[in-house]
């Protein structure tokens, strides 16, 4: 089902190089974060490595806490709705609309609707306002 149209070698190469650059940028962003933490630690008093990560862990925990609160609100809301509305369908299945209602909605007579419904191939003409003028 997938379509992979053949392309010039250059086009493929450009895409590949651009993507490799994006991966390098991604790794740089990640690495820069780690380096920043380590550099901050190097400037501070001598301490075991794990303790230099403590402030970072604090910030990370804050992010995780915010994400967890958001997730908890969403899930709590979903569970509340499951519990509250389980088995409670106040709406019964609506009756399907018939030709008469369709005719009203599309400003046609009932025969016009029946003709369209029964057709195999049909041509519909509209006016400027989008009203049906003719069915052939």
């Amino acid at each position, binding site marked *: 089902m997938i379509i992979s149209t053949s392309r010039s070698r250059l086009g493929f190469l450009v*895409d590949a190089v651009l993507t490799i650059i994006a991966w390098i940028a991604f790794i740089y*962003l990640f690495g820069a974060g780690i380096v920043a933490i380590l550099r901050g630690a190097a400037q501070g008093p001598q301490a075991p490595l794990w303790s230099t990560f403590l402030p970072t862990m604090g910030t990370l925990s804050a992010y995780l806490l915010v994400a967890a609160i958001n997730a908890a609100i969403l899930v709590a*809301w979903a569970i509340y709705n499951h519990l509250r509305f389980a088995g409670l369908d106040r709406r019964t299945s609506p009756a399907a609309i018939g030709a008469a209602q*369709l005719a009203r909605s599309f400003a046609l007579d009932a025969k016009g609707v029946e003709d369209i419904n029964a057709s195999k*191939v049909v041509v519909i003409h*509209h006016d400027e306002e989008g009203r049906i003028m003719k069915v052939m």
Partner: protein
Amino acid sequence: MTDRLLALFVLLLVLGVPFGFTFMVTSEALLAFVFFYPLLMSGLWIAGGLYFWWHWERHWPWGNKHEDRKVPELKGNPLISILVPCYNEAANCEETLLAAVGQRYPHVEVIAINDGSTDGTADTLNRLAARHERLRVIHLATNQGKAMALRMGALAANSEYLVCIDGDAVLDPDAAAFLAAPLIDHPRVAAVTGNPRIRTRSTLVGRIQVGEFSSIIGLIKRTQRVYGKVFTVSGVVAAFRRTALDRVGYWSLDMITEDIDISWKLQRDHWSIFYEPRALCWILMPETLRGLWKQRLRWAQGGAEAFLKNLRSILAWRQRRLWPLMIEFALSALWAFAFALSIILWGVNQFVVLPHSLYVQDLAPPAFTGMMLATVCLLQFLVSLLIDSRYEPRLARSLFWTIWYPLVFWMISLFTTLISLPKVMLRRRRQRARWTSPDRGIKPYDAS
């Protein structure tokens, strides 16, 4: 008149709030919003996607072969009408229609609506109609736009359940049954949106969208379904209950994206919309930047139109469940303008000394924030792989190319919002929407 004033007020608000916020607080707070808003939304989408999977999806038997799937048996074996609006689809419509008439569910009629095409679409449709009993054809004498084509399909249909797909989309053989089942089983459901999978993967632009559809659009749809309201059905593959459409006046003729509009109309009328990831539909997407830009600008404009059209009516307490969707849209618009303001302030700072609160030193995210953004984006893609790879086992192959998708998604959101929002808010009145088709994949390279 009130609507125009409201539009002007909204525009002034999205322009003024980021500036006022920066002036009152600091540019650091503005940048914090610019960097942390995507992080926050990403966390929410991951949580929503995982919950949807845990609560529903993991219980659904699914495999590559038909025998491994549990295709729903539809109560009473009702007829399903598949509507296929076609405008200049001579190149694609045959494959689309053959997949539609080839649905495994036996009670299907397919209605192709030729919307005044000027290529060979009419001949192709007539030829196919003569050959396939399940296929019917409506020719619109003049081009009327997709909304009108869908309306005529709904009028001609002999079923209450309408599956609507684009003229270049290919349905999975069981998709119609999966889409119709929730409409039959749940009286409150008016629409079911399917799972579009991208076919066109020849260029970087095409491949990036594979990641985007799984990691962003798929997770957003699941999250919105968990919340209970959906911003929009997929225009390319969705099913509708005709009675519900009739109550809300069918698709609007003057909205640029009829799918967003109909989703809001139905939900304002207190109908539910479901997401059915098993209803697979293979679609063509733009493979050039120009095509992608054109398509996304139209989507953004459609979102802004829906926001403006519904803003006043959903303020009523009865519509409160739609408020979070509106707030999310408003925050995304504010994010775009906040980002733009930070770029402008940074640029001005290169030449003029601004007050401290407006001073933007650097546009790149601080090292630690950058690391967080990168990690969360990767995590989001891995979560989507976990959930989505059952529908497309080779999805992991896209991992190499999809590194671009977070950046491209947020940058396109940024620029399309900056352009579409003022355009929609300052427009005098809406006009009849007509077809605008972006490219549907590149043409083969001729080496000779």
